[in-house]
């Protein structure tokens, strides 16, 4: 039937729009009730032992989009500090999404939820250093995204997760290309906060790829665009990387100035690990500004914080920085002791051949008690590139 009326005028869509709105009102009222119930469902699910969760998930009340969204939110909260927990939450979210009823929500919404949950799982696995599993989860996310009808926001989110994965794999140019595609979507949607967040991620890809000046520019642009009320910890991460890249580009004075302006932010919003990393970068800056006594204190605190949390590799990297401070101060006994402690940790990791050669050099120096500043600096440079 042609919509045009006999008199050639536009048809009256008013009754159709009224009915559409009424239908949405009814469906969304049910969804609102579901969101309210999601919190208690999540409590039940997370409190259940692993074996009991499968049984719970089979119950119809757990086939809820609201529960899925809540699990994703909890996953995002966990992924910086507790990556294993973030993976667990993302897996649960994929299981909930896998059971959502397409007849109830509509196939597009259900496939979109599945795409988002697999995307979150990919990102949680990447943060937990399981890059192979992250790659597999990402492929599944794209598959569901195509079936969902390719919602632009979900696409930008998955592009961003993929960009971070490529960055972790050392594919910096590909990461930047993916972040640029996500940026275009956020710009078109006039979503300034997410645009800012993506600029920060792109800046980190540039920084990790060694293009420090560009990284600094991107981080500054990102910081001016993000809404810190929406995602407060993002500012801590961005400022931390800005400080790091300023320092690595040789501008230690500016790095220290930004650090001083950011200290309160770390204290108020930062997680314990953020504060440990602040002490670490602060120690390196002090060392390069020849403020060796202060460097020793900051690096010592950072090292203790990493050791306390069992983060051995980062503790060993801080030990290397601390050993360089001791070497400059002529404390050869302390250099020797730290070198002997960190060496087995570095040796236990898969590192590039150049870094391996530097480790062999250090091993020889430890055995003959001739660890020098030059050997430590050489190893530090090689590990940074590894």
């Amino acid at each position: 039937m042609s919509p045009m009326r006999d008199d050639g005028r536009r048809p009256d869509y008013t009754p159709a729009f009224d009915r559409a709105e009424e239908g949405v009102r009814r469906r969304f009222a049910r969804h609102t009730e579901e969101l309210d119930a999601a919190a208690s469902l999540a409590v039940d699910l997370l409190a259940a032992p692993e074996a009991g969760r499968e049984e719970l998930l089979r119950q119809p009340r757990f086939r809820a989009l609201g529960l899925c969204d809540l699990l994703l939110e909890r996953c995002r909260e966990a992924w910086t500090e507790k990556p294993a927990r973030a993976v667990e939450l993302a897996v649960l979210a994929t299981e909930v999404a896998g059971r959502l009823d397409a007849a109830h929500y509509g196939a597009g919404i259900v496939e979109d939820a599945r795409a988002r949950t697999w995307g979150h799982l990919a990102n949680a696995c990447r943060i937990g250093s399981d890059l192979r599993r992250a790659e597999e989860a990402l492929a599944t996310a794209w598959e569901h995204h195509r079936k969902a009808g390719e919602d632009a926001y979900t696409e930008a989110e998955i592009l961003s997760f993929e960009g971070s994965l490529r960055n972790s794999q050392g594919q910096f140019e590909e990461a930047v290309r993916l972040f640029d595609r996500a940026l275009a979507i956020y710009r078109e949607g006039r979503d300034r906060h997410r645009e800012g967040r993506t600029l920060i991620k792109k800046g980190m890809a540039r920084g990790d790829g060694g293009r420090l000046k560009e990284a600094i520019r991107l981080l500054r642009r990102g910081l001016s665009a993000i809404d810190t009320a929406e995602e407060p910890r993002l500012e801590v991460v961005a400022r931390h990387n800005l400080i790091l890249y300023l320092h690595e580009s040789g501008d230690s004075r500016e790095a220290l100035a930004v650090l001083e302006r950011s200290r309160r932010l770390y204290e108020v919003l930062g997680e314990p690990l953020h504060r440990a990393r602040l002490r670490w970068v602060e120690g390196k800056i002090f060392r390069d500004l020849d403020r060796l006594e202060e460097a020793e204190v900051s690096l010592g605190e950072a090292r203790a914080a990493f050791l306390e949390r069992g983060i051995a590799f980062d503790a060993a990297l801080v030990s290397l920085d601390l050993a360089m401070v001791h070497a400059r101060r002529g404390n050869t006994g302390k250099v020797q002791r730290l070198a002997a402690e960190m060496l087995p940790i570095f040796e236990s990791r898969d590192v590039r051949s150049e870094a391996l050669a530097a480790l062999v050099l250090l091993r020889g120096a430890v055995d003959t008690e001739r660890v020098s500043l030059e050997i430590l600096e050489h190893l530090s440079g090689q590990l940074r590139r590894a």
Partner: protein
Amino acid sequence: MCPQARPSQEDLDRLMQRLRPRIAGLLASRNVSPEEAERLVGEALIEIAFRWSRMHDRAGWLLKTLDKKTRPETTEEESAP
């Protein structure tokens, strides 16, 4: 400001009231019947309601979605250079 997690009835009503003339113009230009309009608008509104917190330009999204869903299929002859 953090976008709210879910829309109130007033939020959805306000959005739709503001866009009704433009949506009607778009649908009429594509010869969409009132029955089809009810289905398309209903689907788009429910999607926007579910994705409320992740969208900032909701009006733009709604118009773009309806434009995409009612765009005529391009035939091979039309797309040939």
